[in-house]
């Protein structure tokens, strides 16, 4: 279980996340919804350690990780795929996976680990030697997911995985996200601007507005909730 209590994130004089409490149950998918600038990315970066928490605590299974560096958290089993398809463009698919694996693997060898992710995304297996920068957007997103999954993390944070992708690819990606949660019991935190898409795979959801949690609940309940559109469109 991942618990966030009283979290505050600040950039200079701007408060991006204001006193947020969130709980993510083991083996579930949680959607984080909200308009641009609502604080979704900052929340996720604070959980993975890329930005410091100005206040509040982050715990995984009761252990306080608030003071740990991002790379220590990564080794504890937190994977975070950033928004904007950030991977190592000049490295091949294989190298991307190897970099993701070699500093945090737990025993198993690279071949076994990479074969397992290629099972999930067979089309990548044929492009192992291709520089990641030359792949299509959808394939890049698959590399990012593979890199995030290669050491079998306990927690997977996905920031806007559908952004800029063709709908058919989006469906594949989301199918894979569901499958990861189902098969490996990974706890997944998913931020999406396409709310219905996120809610279709999530168990529960939080809605953020101006850095604050304004709604939480079961995904099925939120899916029909009119206040959702208000959080997005402000109406």
């Amino acid at each position, binding site marked *: 279980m991942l618990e966030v209590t009283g979290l505050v994130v600040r950039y200079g004089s701007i408060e991006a996340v204001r006193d947020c409490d969130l709980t993510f149950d083991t083996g579930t998918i949680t959607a984080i919804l909200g308009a641009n600038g609502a604080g979704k990315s900052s929340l996720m970066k604070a959980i993975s350690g890329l930005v410091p928490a100005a206040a509040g605590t982050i715990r995984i299974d009761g252990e306080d990780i608030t003071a740990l560096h991002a*790379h220590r958290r990564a080794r504890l089993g937190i994977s975070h795929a950033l928004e904007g398809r950030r991977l190592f463009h000049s490295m091949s698919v294989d190298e991307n996976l190897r970099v993701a694996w070699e500093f945090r693997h737990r025993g198993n060898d690279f071949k076994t680990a990479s074969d397992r992710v290629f099972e999930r995304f067979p089309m990548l297996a044929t492009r192992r030697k291709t520089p990641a920068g030359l792949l299509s957007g959808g394939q890049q997103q698959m590399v990012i997911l593979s890199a995030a999954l290669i050491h079998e993390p306990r927690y997977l944070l996905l920031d806007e995985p559908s952004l800029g992708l063709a709908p058919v690819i989006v469906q594949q990606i989301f199918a894979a996200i569901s499958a990861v949660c189902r098969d490996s019991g990974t706890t997944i935190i998913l931020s999406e601007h396409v709310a219905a898409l996120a809610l279709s795979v999530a168990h529960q959801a939080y809605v953020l507005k101006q850095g604050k949690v304004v709604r939480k609940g079961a995904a099925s309940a939120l899916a029909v909730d009119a206040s959702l559109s208000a959080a997005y469109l402000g109406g």
Partner: protein
Amino acid sequence: MEFTLQLAFAGVCVGSAYALIAMGLSLTFWTTRTLNFGQGSLLMVGAVATVALLGAGVPAVAAVALAIALAGALMVVAERVAIRPLLKSGDSMGWVVSTLGFGLFLQGFVAKFYGSQAIAFPSLIFTSLDFVDVFGIQVSAQYLAVLTLSVALMVAMEIFLLRSAWGRAVRAVSHDADVAALAGIPVRRVVVLSFVASGALAGVAGVMVAQITGTVDPQFGFNLMVLGFVAAVFGGMGSIVGALVGGIALGVAEKLAGGFISTAFGDAVAFAILMAVLAIRPQGLFGRREMTKV
């Protein structure tokens, strides 16, 4: 013709040393987008420390190794004192000035305690009178040793970067430090590693160039740093092969200008090339244009 070829060959050898300096500058640039404007003083420290240790009776191999280690250690100090505190401002002016100050401090230190006059640098492997015959051209053994060692080090570096976990980590941090940290890479340790390696490379280059020139003085290294930077810019601050090609082109141009116009003119030509390259193609001949962010 013979004269021209000899000049060209000397240029290739000296140029390979420039490329080595370029590699030292590029390493820290990759991991932190900064480079040490006092790098020249680390070349000087490498050479002066070697002379001092040899004078104290330390065996040659140990003396060189210690001098190189000292240069590497000083670079860690430079990172801690002159670079890290100034990265927050987001402006390069702070660390440019402070690393320049770091170099000047070392220069002043050596001048104060070892004198500002040139001191003789002993022959380590070959003497300046040893010549080898290559395709009918008399070639200085010292120059050949510099070329061989430089190229070997660069190949080793390329292999390290491409094949080893820490080499990949350097590339990962260079490309996107956030993503690297999320992959479990200890970014700070990679940065420190890159600074140690950068300093050590400067030390090696210092010893090699001093071997050729035969003397060192406190100002030794400053021009070399700028020339190394020219080579690095040829490679777009990113490519080792580019730096090697750039360094060699620069070395040959410098030696030819020096041989046919006047010795001192060689440096001026090299600096003119620097200004021209920067003005025409700031991203380097081998580099790719960075996307402008607004």
